[in-house]
């Protein structure tokens, strides 16, 4: 019963997916491939900040300078430079500012470690709150007389 319902629901769900798996016969022109060079260029560009943009990576930005920077990356890749060398080149020109991911140097490490510190502080205070509250003595349970107990028993039997 439930199985059938589930299958029905699944079937309905599939209806929402148009033309799933149905492949019309297709001819096509020549297939163009993304060059390995472009892939490497973009993967480096993604870690660099576009200098005139507002918080966009060189890969995402549509600004002219980002385009120039991508060209620069490409030229250096063609010249046989490694990823490290290219990133170092940009850092030497623009400083650490260009790196979207802060480095693990003195300044950068703080920003990586502080979240752990924050978590530790807040978790400790949370734990202290819970402990303080559970330590506080609870009011003693109400004393039931024989009469009350009989009433409870009677109520239970009625159920």
């Amino acid at each position, binding site marked *: 019963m439930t199985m059938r319902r589930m299958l029905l629901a699944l079937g309905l769900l599939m209806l929402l997916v148009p033309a*799933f798996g149905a492949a019309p016969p297709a001819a096509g022109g020549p297939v163009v491939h993304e060059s390995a060079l472009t892939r490497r260029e973009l993967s480096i560009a993604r870690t660099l900040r576009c200098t005139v943009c507002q918080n966009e990576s060189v890969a995402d930005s549509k600004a002219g300078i980002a385009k120039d920077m991508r060209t620069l990356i490409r030229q250096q890749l063609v010249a046989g430079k490694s990823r490290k060398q290219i990133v170092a080149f940009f850092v030497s020109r623009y400083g650490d500012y260009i790196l979207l991911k802060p480095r693990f140097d003195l300044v950068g490490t703080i920003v990586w470690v502080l979240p752990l510190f*924050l978590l530790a502080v807040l978790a400790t205070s949370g734990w202290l709150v819970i402990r303080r509250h559970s330590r506080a003595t609870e009011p003693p349970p109400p004393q039931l007389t024989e009469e009350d107990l009989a009433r409870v028993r009677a109520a239970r039997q009625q159920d």
Partner: protein
Amino acid sequence: MSPNALSLNLIELGHFAAILAFVLAIVQGLTPIVARGLHRPQLASLTGNLAVAVFVLTSIGGATIIYSFLTNNFSVLVVASHSNTHMPLFYKVAALWGGHRGSLYLWIWILTLFTMVLAFDGQTRYPERLPVILAVQGWLVAGFFGLSLFLSSPFVRLFPVPLQGADLDPLLQNPGMVMHPPMLYMGYVGFSVPFAFAMAALITRWKSELWIGLIRRWALIAWGFLTLGIVLGAWWSYYVLGWGGYWAWDPVENASFMPWLVGTALIHSITVQERRRMLHTWNIFLVITTFSLSLLGTFLVRSGVLSSVHAFTVSPGQGSYILAFMTVTLAISFGIFLARGRFQEAEETLASPMSRESLFVWNNVVFTTAAACVLLGTLYPLAINALNGSRITVGPPYFNAVMMPIFFVMLLLMAVGPLVPWRKANMIRLRARVLFPAILGLSAGVVMAVLAWPVYWTGPVAVGLVGFVLGTLIVDLARAVQQRRAQHISENVVVATWRTVFGNRRHYGGMIVHLGILMVAVGIVGTGMFRVEKSVVMAPGDVVKIGAQRLQFDGVHDLKGPNYTALQGKLTSLDHGFVLRPERRDYGPQQMTTTVASVNSNLLRDVYVVMGSPVPGKNGTTHYLIQVFINPLVAFLWMGGLTMVFGLGFTLSHRVRRAARATAPEAASAYAK
């Protein structure tokens, strides 16, 4: 008189109305103090009338600005710089919040609206405290009006009057952008109401258990608008900015995310206080922090200290004003909190560390940690720059790495929390309840790891957690339905489920919101882990193969829009037959060319295409740079967002009915008198 001449004069009327509103807002802030000083407490009730007057006057001001946009009154600076005669009507109205001056005015307008609604809401329910609450709101209104009128006035005139206006930034000419700022402002401003309550409570020594129930609705509504605003912003970023993503950890995005995180902690911890009379002081702290972060967001957007896609160009005076305003507000509110916060304490005890209330404490720990981390990442570059002058960037890779584990803990708590009973959990029963979800989660994680091998560890963990949460949601509902059917044997499953859900809207509304979060999580995992991207140079007739899709580029043609010309490309899917039409739009000489992505969506994946600049080919042909993305499961993000808002509405619908029933006997007794 021609409409244009009328508009010329009306804008000055609007300006006058706005100045009057500013003055009356100050009067509103002073009234309770004066009433107390003169020993005439009945004077204080004037604040309600003033709140209405301030809203009406602000509306007159806003209406005249909109009227100036509609009549192309280019003698008004905001109109001349954000609108022109070619712009569609829809965007002429929306241009009000297209720039710094207008959007600030909208902020104030919404604030005065909330203040007025508050005045009506409180008239019968908490009349003694209302004047002080409204006074706090009055000072906020006055503070923002001061900025608007003296440093960033939307009523500034231009002479000589230009014949034609500039354009609204093309990126903003999109339906998502039209709705995004108002929704976000409703969220930010909505949190001012709990803030005003907290301030009034601290000043007048009003016990928080008496008012925490009153702010729950306000906080939920504000949270709902903020959620909607954030989702719309992500949607806009995805469809308009054309980079294939939806969240960039931009400072301004973070500015809206921080109040959301603390607001989420708040709406959970309010529940604890309502149910178990705990965390009084902490709740007041959260209320103040949430609104402070909203203020900080406004400061970051408007002061120009941070560069961001959203930042407005502003003069230095505005930055100083906002900084001063924010500092004063924070100093006063936290000062009062420190001086008066303690007396609220009248706490119940926690029966067990394994109880709903202690899990709520952990929820608060996790959400405040998340907000603190976002704040840290956003402000760290500023701090470093101020300290030793060096400039560094804290970008998306950092936030993704830091937030991922926090996000996992959130999911885990979301799964376990609703299953654990208040006061004390019976571990044996709890184990039985967690068994099915745990199996579901584990198998989901394993299946995912096997199918998508090799995969980074976060993938299976995230999918496993999503399965786990889903399992607990099912178990939670199934148990309630089972209990109901044990009592009402005649009901079949569907009727029993229906009645269970509608019988406890508050709880199940929350569960629907959780389901929405789960759907968003599915979307985040899908796009985060399985996105495929290709960037190729194509000539007409070329085919690009990405994932299981083969797309053929059929060439480009020119297109003319209402206020732009465009080059539209056409790509056909050889496998599924759909057509994609990415555009490059030109909005005239003053604006940069913008790209409009074309997306084919279904439930499982989006095919997303952006057309880049033309590249000269070998034999005189023109090639185009085409960027193709396969973004899996993006649809879940938007569905999840809608589900969250729906769930919130469902939760709120419960209170409306109860309130209506509660007031009926009161009304009857009022008549009897």
